[in-house]
């Protein structure tokens, strides 16, 4: 099917960019300023959704702006893989924008204008990455995303904030200025282009296997946002950010940008065929399995709820990569769908952590005994999202894990089926005790006062919990897109 040429991918990005501008212009009118983000989010989602029919029926929406270098254009293409990422990001921005208002107002956070402006720019960068038609365009948005999220990480501007921010930027920039840069230069040298090609850009050219292997691993570790160990340490450090940032950016936009880039490399730079030929699929699968299990073990040991969620994210991101590198169609579908499944559930869990903090000032799980009676909606949503992370029906996590498990079998790799099962048990082990403590443990006397739900914080998290279930019951949209990627 011929691609549809349209300016819509650019409009989607521009909406978020303009939102940032309006936030800055309206910095003196707080009420108006706070309205900008939700409105922009709805508009952006509408634009993204308007491209869905074309992409669902196997087409793509393209916009070629100009040539940067011979064989490299500044160009956008909304294809199936990009739509998965863009849909999730823009949809969840609506919820997160509302949640942010509730959270920031309740805690009377400082520098709210900077916060909302950077937040909007982050979305522009994420959707820009989703719609990038080649590595060059993708990497520009990838780096912009690192930069505009940095002020969000050091937001509190205290010692902890600066340290966390430093670790964040050092990891992300360090990886992209070293191995990612080398990978790009080598790819351009070998292929004379940086375009995404169905079946793989590098599959079309002759190059030594050793060189290609080096390039491949440079990409895998260069896209540090994917948080494959040992490039994961920035993510727990980023938890010093206000919770809305941890929720939308460090559970959805930023980290998904990382795995999205890795999937682009596997599917459209190397191609499934070449990755298999070079024997890189199974090697990567072992690597990410280690990340899946180790990060879960780390998560078990963390008492700070956000830290536990962060390590859980590290683990879950590697599910996505695992699905892709198993190279069986079903596993690949599972990996792609997990981008959405994890997003809906993990954002819920972070929203809950923020809600608990807003309502009670508590961050440690050991202090949360009995809090479910004060915050029934929050902890109810937490429980639902936990089920999804563990992968129980009828939640979103069940769909992706089902496909991942079936894909491991299809690929004939029982080892990874075992990894999935063990990690599910670990998921249960670090999530369920939170719900248990919240609902069944006795509440200490002193903390009973004045802890109650904050509507503007609670409504969004209930919404995302419902989304997690809805996606479990109606997974067709993402399954169709994922099948479109796998072909």
């Amino acid at each position: 099917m011929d691609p549809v040429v349209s300016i819509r991918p650019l409009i989607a990005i521009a909406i978020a960019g303009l939102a940032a501008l309006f936030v800055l212009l309206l910095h003196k009118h707080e009420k108006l300023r706070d309205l900008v983000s939700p409105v922009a989010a709805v508009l952006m989602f509408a634009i993204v959704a308007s491209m869905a029919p074309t992409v669902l029926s196997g087409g793509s929406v393209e916009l070629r702006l100009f040539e940067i270098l011979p064989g490299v254009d500044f160009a956008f293409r909304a294809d199936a893989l990009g739509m998965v990422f863009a849909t999730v990001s823009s949809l969840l921005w609506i919820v997160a924008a509302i949640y942010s208002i509730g959270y920031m107002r309740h805690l009377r956070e400082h520098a709210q204008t900077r916060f909302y402006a950077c937040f909007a720019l982050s979305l522009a960068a994420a959707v820009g990455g989703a719609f990038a038609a080649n590595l060059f365009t993708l990497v520009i948005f990838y780096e912009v995303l690192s930069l505009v999220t940095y002020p969000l990480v050091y937001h509190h501007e205290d010692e902890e904030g600066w340290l966390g921010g430093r670790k964040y930027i050092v990891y992300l920039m360090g990886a992209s200025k070293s191995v990612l840069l080398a990978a790009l230069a080598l790819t351009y040298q070998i292929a004379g282009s940086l375009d995404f090609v169905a079946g793989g850009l590098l599959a079309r050219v002759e190059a030594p296997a050793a060189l290609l292997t080096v390039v491949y691993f440079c990409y895998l570790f260069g896209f540090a946002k994917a948080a494959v160990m040992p490039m994961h340490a920035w993510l727990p450090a980023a938890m010093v950010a206000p919770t809305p940032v941890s929720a939308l950016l460090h559970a959805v936009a930023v980290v998904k940008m990382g795995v999205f880039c890795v999937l682009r490399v596997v599917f459209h730079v190397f191609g499934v065929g070449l990755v298999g030929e070079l024997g890189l699929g199974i090697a990567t699968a072992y690597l990410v399995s280690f990340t899946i299990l180790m990060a879960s073990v780390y998560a078990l040991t963390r008492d700070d709820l956000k830290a536990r969620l962060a390590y859980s994210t590290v683990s879950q991101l590697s599910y996505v990569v695992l699905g892709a590198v198993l190279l069986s169609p079903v596993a690949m579908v599972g990996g792609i769908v997990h981008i959405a499944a994890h997003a809906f559930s993990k954002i819920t869990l972070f929203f809950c952590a923020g809600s608990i903090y807003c309502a009670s000032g508590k961050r440690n799980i050991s202090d949360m005994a009995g809090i479910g009676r004060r915050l029934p909606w929050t902890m109810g949503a937490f429980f639902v999202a936990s089920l999804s992370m563990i992968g129980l029906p009828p939640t979103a996590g069940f769909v992706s894990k089902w496909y991942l498990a079936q894909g491991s079998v299809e690929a004939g790799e029982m080892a990874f089926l075992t990894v999935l099962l063990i990690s599910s048990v670990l998921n249960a082990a670090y999530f369920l005790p939170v719900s248990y403590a919240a609902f069944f443990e006795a509440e200490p006397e002193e903390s009973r006062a004045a802890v109650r739900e904050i509507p503007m914080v609670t409504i969004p998290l209930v919404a995302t919990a419902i989304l997690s279930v809805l996606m479990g019951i109606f997974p067709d949209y993402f399954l169709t897109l994922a099948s479109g990627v796998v072909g």
Partner: protein
Amino acid sequence: MELPLLSLIVLTPAAGAAILALLPSDDAVRRVALGVTLIDLALSIVMLANFDTTTHAMQFTEIRPWVPSLGINYALGVDGISALFVFLTALLGSVSVLASWVAIDRKVKEFMINLLAMQALMLGVFSALDLFLFYVLWEAMLIPMYLIIGIWGGEGRVYAAFKFFLYTLAGSLLFLIGVIVLYFEGGETFDILALTARDLPFGVQSWLFFAFLIAFAVKVPMVPVHTWLPDAHVQAPTAGSIILAGVLLKMGAYGFLRFSLPMLPEASVYYSTLMLALSALAIVYGGLLALAQDDLKKLVAYSSISHMGFVTLGIFSLNLHGLEGSILQMFNHGVTTGALFLFVGLIYERTHTRSIAAYGGLMKAAPIYTAFLALFTLSSMALPGTNSFIGELLVLSGGFAANPAFGAAAVLGAVLSAAYLLGMYGKVALGQASVGDRYAIHDVNAREMVAILPLAVFVLWVGLYPKPFLEIIDVSVKHLLVQVHGTGGGP
């Protein structure tokens, strides 16, 4: 008769310098100097606008006999290799005048005369097509630069100026010998294009290659003849640093492109591995030195050594990506490092310290300054979307094709640049300390903004739409590759 555009470009600052001598007040001197550099900038834009990107031939050529008995001509012309540098020189000329507006408060007239004389000479070097003319201008550049550092510099200015003078002079003497040998071996002509067409025996090429190498390596500067640079930069006034880093360093690399490669092609190919090794050394060593600096200006100076290593790496990759990348990177380095020195100057004017440890939390006191500092810092570390990334990507692509080991060393240099630049930015602009509490800091004013904005435009323009710049370079580089390899050369 056609308008002698290049002569106008070269002579406008010279004439301006003469006019300045007649002016009574410092204020008038500043205004006229700015006016002259702006006219020159406009002329250079006219030149670029009329530049024909489809030919490698010299354009806007002028030739008049100078010393007919020796066959010396006043011959000017530009091709794709030099055109961007003429423009860059004119651009940084205006920026330099603006940067000296209040920073230079004594002997303003003499300073501006030196600045304009310097500009005329540099423009002459980039457009000279006669070897003798080139040599005379090349040598003459030393004098105003020596004076700028030696008179208007910091505490150790005399030492720094002498060091600069001696290093460069030592290189120049070898260059002079090379010029004389070239004159006789090349058939008693000073015509650069005619000399380029000669086929010299390999033995002669080798000797000349090393004579030129030392002359050009001092200018670039390549390790181990780089030690004059940090001294010169630290002592020079801001405008001196901008010119030094923005234009003078390019002279050495330009020498390789104009003389070594086309005139000595076999020697250039033969010794290319050595040159790549020296380049990789400069990239990594310069980066390590930059990492260890507390003096803001020294940090930028050492980063220049590292970044110029990328340039020579690209040149001696001897392939299309490498050469195009290195020429573009020279332009980028001029813009970005020129801007960084400008920023060092701006903050020094406000705090009278250059110690990075003394800053911190500048973001609060001067948000516009720190925002633009971020842009140029990111440009210097070659973030995708900025000008240097395009150059770095091309140079690395060329470098990997030429020699993967040195390509990998260059990547190490890229990581180092991220380390020292981000570290610097973090310590200066961010953090809990507030430099605004200790010093009365005001944000950039309108005049400073005028100097900053054009440089910022080029950072993003080249970063996102480098095509017009690469088009200027492209045909000439392909022709150069034919001269070096005899064929089109690899990609």
